[in-house]
């Protein structure tokens, strides 16, 4: 007989790893959240305790001392064998590395990238504007953050096409839980980064402006970062910044294509775009969960947690929790507390690239709508989404030329 409770917690069997029609994952997530405050999900080998309400999820992110990133995804706890930095560090060690990186991702630093972000965005839009249609995901939404990532590392955006192929291959292998394929894709990427880092060792730039030079010159407790650590940081930034931005753009453009009034509001008053970005992040989080691993037995409300338990922090469930956000499934440009969404996580591990992501999304919304204000999803398209970490494989858009 299937277990109905696990250590006193109701058991759920919802599978969040499949490919489904678009928005189906949000429906399943909302349903689980309203079924019980806490659930134990038994669909993975280790299972996981689900925190689903806004207040619980936020507290979960803040419990960083006992709930560590030894597991980063409740759905793929064993992909955590793949080293990532700074995520894999916790406590004081994590803070030291974040302090080296923070200055390149702070709003002030990101603002310095804005002219370049605009220019590259305009170039990519102008390539497709005259065609009257595109697969928004493949022809725009992944190319833009890839080019921005290369620029952040001081690498030529002309490498974007090749780089994109490697990174896509690597990321899809990781999500599919296929370590052999992931390792093959990873070696091409690491060798590319290795060349870039060595070039910067030979020809250092200003470490205040150039992140790779800063990584090469940085000392933590008087010890320089190893080459492997620097390469792992580069790889982590790539993994964190490309698929997420592509996916966010996909959900935003699916929404705007299907909701012309919301689109018109942004065209009429582009000053609303930063607010729209926050509300889109709240409404359509792609990383719909984060994982943590319990280090010491602990009672959290009604949950009795043991060492080694996997905890699920339900980001999308928090962002769509009606206890926190009124009419949570509505896009509301004037929502007073939209900024409190947890799409970028919280606590010391909150997304390092959040300000860069905000800039990229804002620039795309501004520049695209100046050039292509009217567009629609190609008739007859059935949009589908990938589980684990949401993304659309394809979003065909059409417009008049």
């Amino acid at each position, binding site marked *: 007989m299937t277990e109905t409770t696990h250590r006193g917690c109701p058991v759920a069997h919802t599978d969040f790893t499949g490919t489904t029609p678009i928005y189906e994952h949000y429906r399943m997530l909302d349903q689980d959240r309203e079924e019980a405050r806490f659930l134990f999900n038994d669909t993975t080998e280790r299972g996981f305790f689900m925190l689903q309400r806004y207040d619980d999820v936020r507290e979960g992110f803040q419990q960083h001392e006992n709930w560590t990133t030894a597991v980063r995804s409740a759905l793929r706890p064993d992909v955590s064998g793949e080293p990532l930095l700074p995520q894999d560090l916790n406590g004081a060690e994590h803070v030291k590395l974040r302090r080296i990186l923070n200055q390149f991702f702070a709003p002030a630093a990101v603002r310095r990238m804005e002219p370049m972000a605009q220019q590259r965005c305009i170039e990519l839009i102008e390539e497709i504007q005259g065609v009257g249609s595109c697969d928004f995901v493949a022809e725009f939404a992944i190319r833009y953050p890839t080019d921005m990532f290369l620029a952040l590392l001081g690498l030529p955006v002309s490498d974007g096409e090749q780089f994109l192929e490697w990174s896509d291959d690597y990321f899809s292998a990781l999500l599919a839980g296929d370590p052999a394929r992931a390792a093959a894709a990873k070696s091409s990427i690491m060798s590319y980064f290795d060349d870039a880092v060595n070039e910067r060792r030979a020809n250092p730039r200003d470490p205040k402006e150039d992140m790779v030079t800063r990584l090469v010159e940085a000392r933590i407790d008087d010890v320089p970062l190893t080459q492997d650590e620097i390469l792992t940081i580069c790889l982590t930034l790539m993994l964190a910044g490309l698929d997420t931005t592509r996916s966010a753009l996909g959900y935003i453009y699916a929404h705007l294509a299907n909701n012309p009034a919301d689109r018109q509001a942004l065209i009429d008053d582009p000053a609303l775009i930063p607010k729209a970005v926050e509300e889109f992040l709240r409404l359509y989080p792609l990383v719909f969960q984060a994982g943590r691993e319990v280090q010491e037995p602990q009672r959290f409300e009604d949950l009795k947690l043991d060492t080694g338990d996997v905890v699920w922090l339900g980001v999308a469930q928090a962002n769509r929790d009606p206890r926190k956000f009124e009419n949570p499934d509505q896009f509301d440009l004037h929502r007073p507390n939209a*900024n409190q969404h947890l799409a970028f996580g919280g606590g010391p591990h909150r997304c390092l690239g959040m300000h860069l992501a905000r800039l990229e999304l804002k620039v795309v919304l501004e520049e695209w709508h100046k050039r292509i204000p009217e567009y629609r999803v190609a008739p007859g398209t059935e949009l589908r989404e990938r589980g684990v970490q949401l993304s659309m494989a394809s979003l065909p858009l059409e417009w008049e030329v």
Partner: protein
Amino acid sequence: MFISIEADKCMGHGRCYAVAPDLLSDDDEGFVAERGRCWSIPDALIGQAEDAADACPEGAIAVLATATPTDA
């Protein structure tokens, strides 16, 4: 009224100084420069202080009728 920003809870989300630019500022790492402080605010900025409190994903900011300022 007073505004108080808990340094331990601030994680540099940058929402507060985005919505309260006349009251708060950012440092080089993206944290609010005033974190760890509690101070009296003029009436004209109470609205921005409340917006900042409502914008913080960590719940690090409070607007208080009575408080002991840190730099009194």
